[in-house]
């Protein structure tokens, strides 16, 4: 069969052989070309969707931006009645509650994953892994209810008083303990992100070549030292898992709303109520009347995007630097 196909131009010659543009099909196979373009569309769709969301939110946030400008970012007052809106208490609440969650969850998740991969016999590892995965499937509103009825009273009566007794001299554990506040919100988040982080870390550790362990053991390393070798090997993957967990913590809405106290204030004390960006949007969006109010909430949504983006970027930088240090071959 004779064909004439030059560059990106497609020509159908007299006896009718159809050719796709070379750009789409370097191999010249049309089926592959269709497959390739379908996949490309999928990827493009996500990018377009994200761009469309950001554009729409930026557009709808104009009244608030026009009114407050960058003061919105560090404004501390949130008063729908007077039309004063500031984002700082919400940014603070989002970042701090997520940090508490990470501080509590990362060691726990690592412990679970290391136990399941390195130590536990199969008969125990399987059911435990299953239960941890099950935790991830519980709807967040159920976590919230459990938070109100079990965790909040626990913090108020069992956990809070001894903490205050030991650390009451620091600004972090002062004030009345109602059981509802930043600490309870952070603990709920920690419980919610633990299954995600531990599941991913588990897979990461399982993917570390057995040869690494064998080499370490052969050199006379103890179980503990071997585990450290394995962890170092999986460090980038582990950081990735932490980022995933952090993403969930930052965006989590229902469960946090139910236990954090929903008060737009910046207080160092972890017993005091706080507020997160996701929570205030969920709480006030349905009844927000007036353009300024609505646009302030939308601008908060944009800021949530931004906060997530910055934290993700920082974490990725961290991954790169760690990866460069531990295993230069892989970069």
């Amino acid at each position: 069969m004779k064909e004439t196909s030059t560059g990106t131009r497609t020509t159908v010659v007299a006896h009718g052989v159809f050719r796709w543009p070379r750009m789409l099909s370097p191999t010249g196979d049309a089926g592959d070309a269709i497959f390739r373009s379908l996949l490309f569309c999928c990827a493009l769709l996500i990018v377009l969707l994200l761009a469309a969301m950001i554009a729409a939110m930026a557009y709808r946030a104009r009244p608030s931006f026009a009114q407050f400008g960058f003061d919105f970012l560090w404004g501390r007052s949130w008063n729908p009645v007077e039309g004063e809106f500031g984002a700082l208490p919400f940014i603070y609440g989002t970042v701090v509650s997520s940090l508490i969650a990470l501080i509590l969850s990362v060691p726990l998740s690592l412990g679970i994953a290391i136990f399941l991969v390195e130590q536990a016999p199969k008969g125990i590892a399987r059911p435990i892994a299953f239960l941890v995965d099950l935790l991830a499937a519980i709807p967040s509103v159920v976590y919230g209810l459990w938070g109100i009825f079990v965790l909040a009273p626990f913090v108020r009566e069992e956990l809070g008083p001894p903490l205050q007794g030991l650390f009451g001299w620091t600004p972090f554990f002062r004030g009345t303990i109602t059981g509802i506040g930043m600490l309870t919100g952070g603990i709920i988040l920690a419980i919610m992100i633990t299954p995600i982080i531990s599941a991913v870390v588990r897979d990461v550790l399982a993917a570390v070549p057995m040869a690494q362990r064998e080499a370490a053991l052969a050199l006379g390393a103890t179980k503990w030292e071997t585990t450290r070798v394995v962890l170092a090997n999986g460090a980038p993957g582990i950081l990735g898992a932490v980022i995933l967990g952090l993403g969930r913590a930052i965006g989590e809405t229902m469960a946090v709303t139910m236990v954090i106290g929903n008060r737009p204030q910046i207080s160092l004390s972890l017993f005091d109520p706080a507020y997160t960006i996701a929570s205030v949007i969920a709480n006030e969006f349905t009844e927000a009347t007036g353009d300024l109010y609505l646009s302030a909430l939308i601008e908060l949504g944009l800021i949530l995007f931004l906060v997530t983006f910055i934290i993700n970027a920082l974490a990725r930088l961290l991954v790169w630097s760690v990866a460069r240090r531990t295993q230069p071959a892989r970069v």
Partner: protein
Amino acid sequence: MIISCEVMVKMSWRVRSACLILLSLTLVWQACSGRRGGPAGGAVRLQGAGATFPNPLYQKWLSEYSKIDPNVRIDYQSIGSGGGIKQIEAQTIDFGATDIPVSDEELKNFPREILHIPTALGAVVLTYNLPQIKAPLRFSPEVIADIFLGKIKRWDDARIKADNPNAALPSADITVVHRSDGSGTTAVFTDYLVKISSEWKERVGTGTSVNWPLGIGAKGNEGVTGQIKQTPNTIGYVELAYAVQNKLPVAAIKNRAGNYVEPTLDAIKMAAAASAAKMPDDLRVSITDAPGDGAYPISSYTYILVYKEQRDAAKGKALVDFLWWAVHDGQRFAPSLQYAPLPEEVVRRVETKLNSITAGGRPLRAEAKDGG
């Protein structure tokens, strides 16, 4: 399609099947995006959305009304008063619902004249968690305002004691619980506080969400209830229906006549009746802090919003007939769900409003005469 059949025949089977799939997808797409037919069998469908507070009553009405007129199908979504106002303003629904009348400023955004139809009465109650106290606590208005302003900090404050000389009030801090989500309940409660306290009016004001001077925020009536039930020495406000169903202790509140009144359906109806005479022509009225010996002071109407000039005569007729039924026969379903029925004089006012609804200039109730 661009590729001719002749060309298609000569293509490899893979390309042909891919093209066929594309072609069939296109056809399916066109079939799906094509206009769906109108309602089947001449049935009229009405869409409503708005306030969550009257939702149980409205759902009851919808199911009862579907037995009376099976040709009318009405759906109501409880998305919140704000959403209800927005959607009826954009004319994406046939009726909206709100717990608080639309503000003057917002009324200007509506394309045509909108009518406020009161459908039932509700109340906001104060509830608390003081295990040792059995009889209902009593509060005077200034004490309520000062508790929520943070000026009265402890339960054994002299001013709370003055209202409750016989109660064994604990020597403990008061924890205030309020709604964190925007809500008509908050709007009614703060509307009351604005009327009874000038300091509240200056510092906080009224709205579906306000900048609370203190306390913890909980989502929804269920959130506030949960928080109060779980935490000793708390005080908060919820809807009456919610408090009754959950058997919460509710406070008696001193009304304008100086009597401590517990929130009962009769007391709410009295608040409405006492202010019925002063009801403005558009029926937008706040009945908090109402006069009348037995009136409960934190009562309010809940409204359905409809356009005075309906665009579709058949739908408009169905809507007016439904509303007519709701404010007459429908009222008997209200008490069992803890809503107070409308006073007689208010029903008369609503009748006038419903009779004034037109489609294409023709009144929709006219041919029915007095058929309600």
